């Protein structure tokens, strides 16, 4: 009884941490540019697929992972320069459409570069589960939780104690004022996309040994990460992590106690309920229309 509960909680926290990382990527870009990047899930996919493919070339695992993150970061950078930058002053709807186009384009490209098969990335430190009051904890789950924790800490340090981080925050609060004090806001935007791509790639690599990786893996992960960002309040990085954990745990308990068939629907039911009753999310700031 308790063992079941603990097992569901563990798997919920594990996927929740992944959703949170993906949601974090949404928040970073949204803060810097008010763009919802629908290609966020593709960063996750590229991270996983690239590390599998580097690994198969005989490159040792740690290096393969670093390379995969670097590749994804470049994709994020390129996305900003070639697709977002030329359309900076378009409407919200048209920017949404551009990022949707980018996501389909990247998915199509991935299917050509790699294939449509499922791939397995070996777990970082073996597959022997750790017994915990009757529940089994996969070592990879610890990697996911630990990885998410470290990244949150690093991001917090970055945003609060580095000039670049502070510049990004300044741009998100008021782009015009940021420019006046000498911040190159275009550069900030590029950095935000690169940073967000790196976050997505790390999430994709951490989760790949648990859930297989394939070219469509980013669709659901991206959308659920997006739910996490909304539940936590769009634009609030810590909120995204909290939202991710909430979505992940709700999903795991639904799968365990109610019906595994509707597991994937949970995140979207939550998103609609949040939009109906709590439009700025759990920790978001209220949007005010300025004239």
């Amino acid at each position: 009884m308790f063992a079941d509960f603990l097992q569901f909680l563990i798997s919920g926290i594990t996927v929740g941490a992944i959703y949170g990382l993906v949601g974090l990527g949404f928040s970073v870009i949204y803060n810097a540019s008010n763009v919802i990047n629908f290609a966020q899930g593709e960063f996750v996919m590229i991270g996983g697929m690239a590390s599998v493919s580097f690994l198969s070339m005989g490159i040792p695992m740690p290096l393969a992972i670093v390379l995969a993150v670097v590749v994804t970061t470049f994709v994020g950078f390129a996305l900003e320069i070639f697709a977002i930058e030329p359309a900076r002053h378009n409407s919200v709807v048209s920017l949404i459409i551009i990022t949707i186009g980018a996501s389909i384009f990247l998915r199509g490209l991935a299917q050509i570069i790699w294939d449509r098969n499922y791939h397995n990335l070996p777990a970082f430190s073996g597959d022997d589960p750790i017994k915990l009051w009757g529940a089994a904890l996969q070592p990879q789950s610890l990697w996911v939780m630990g990885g998410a924790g470290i990244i949150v800490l690093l991001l917090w340090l970055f945003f609060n104690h580095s000039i670049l981080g502070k510049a990004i925050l300044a741009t998100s609060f008021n782009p015009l004022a940021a420019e006046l004090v000498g911040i190159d806001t275009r550069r900030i935007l590029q950095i935000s996309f690169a940073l967000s791509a790196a976050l997505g790639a790390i999430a994709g690599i951490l989760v790949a040994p648990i859930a297989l990786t394939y070219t469509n893996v980013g669709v659901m992960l991206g959308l659920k990460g997006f739910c996490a960002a909304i539940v936590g309040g769009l634009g609030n990085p810590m909120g995204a992590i909290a939202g991710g954990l909430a979505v992940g745990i709700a999903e795991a308990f639904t799968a365990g106690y109610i019906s595994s068939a509707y597991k994937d629907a949970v995140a979207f039911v939550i998103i609609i309920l949040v939009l109906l009753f709590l439009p700025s999310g759990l920790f978001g700031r209220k949007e005010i229309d300025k004239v």
Partner: protein
Amino acid sequence: MMPLLKPRTGGLLSLMVILVVLPLFFRNAYHYDVAIQSGLNAIVCVGLNLLIGYTGQISLGHAGFFALGAYASAVLTDRYEFAAVGAMIIGAVAVGCLSYLIARPILKLKGHYLAMATLGLGIIISIILNQEEELTGGPDGMPVSSFSFFGWDISGNLTWYGIVALVLLFTVWLALNLVDSPVGRALRAVHGSELAASTMGVDTQRYKVLIFVFSAVLASIAGSIFAHYSGFVSPAEGEFFRSIEFVTMVVLGGMASIFGAVVGAAILTILPQLLASFHDYEMMVHGAVLMGVMIFMRRGLVPTLVHFIRGLRK
């Protein structure tokens, strides 16, 4: 301007002529099939374009409404022996109510929130269609009986083509009139600046909800017709990617252009058929079209062409 040059008269007339002349060029059943699919997509896109182009809102879940209409027709006629027309109307009314319930609270919010809510709704619909196997046949789909109308079984390519063409014409006529009515002017005001519009006394909320419900009902009706025409429905009709396809058609054809929606739907229905041998590249092309049009031809194909031709005349 001469009345013939106005979209409401001349445009509609040209569309009518094209739709009548087109079958003369059809050589086989396959041509009819592509034309009918284009027509059905166009019906959805005309509605969706009112929403995207005229109110500046976006829906990423219209395939869900299309699928709901299709399944309402399939399930009600097959499992509960409803008349086809009755099933279609019940489907449309149900989708209308559902979209109203969702839209009323959410359209109060800004920009991308409707996108998220419709996205969620579309995915939930598609999951339900996949899971409720006893009712919907699950991922394998289910067969649909032919459309009988007071004892007359609709069959034959030309008949189906005629029906789809008529519904499309009616939809375009309705949309053109809507755009030229006070509602249309209010919508354009909403698109320009919602705050300014509401300050001027436009009930922005009501109009947005109205258009959203109208476009959802159109999608549902198109779905019902599709179900009877193809004789088979599967959850693939409601997939997220289908919703994106509808949006792509609208964007390519031209936002805020009714005929643009028709052109966009036709192009993106025919293009994959031509590119069938390049099937692997279909997704990339799709994505590139979306990005390219939005970046380089922001207003879409038809408005850009119209602008170009007007420029030449001067």
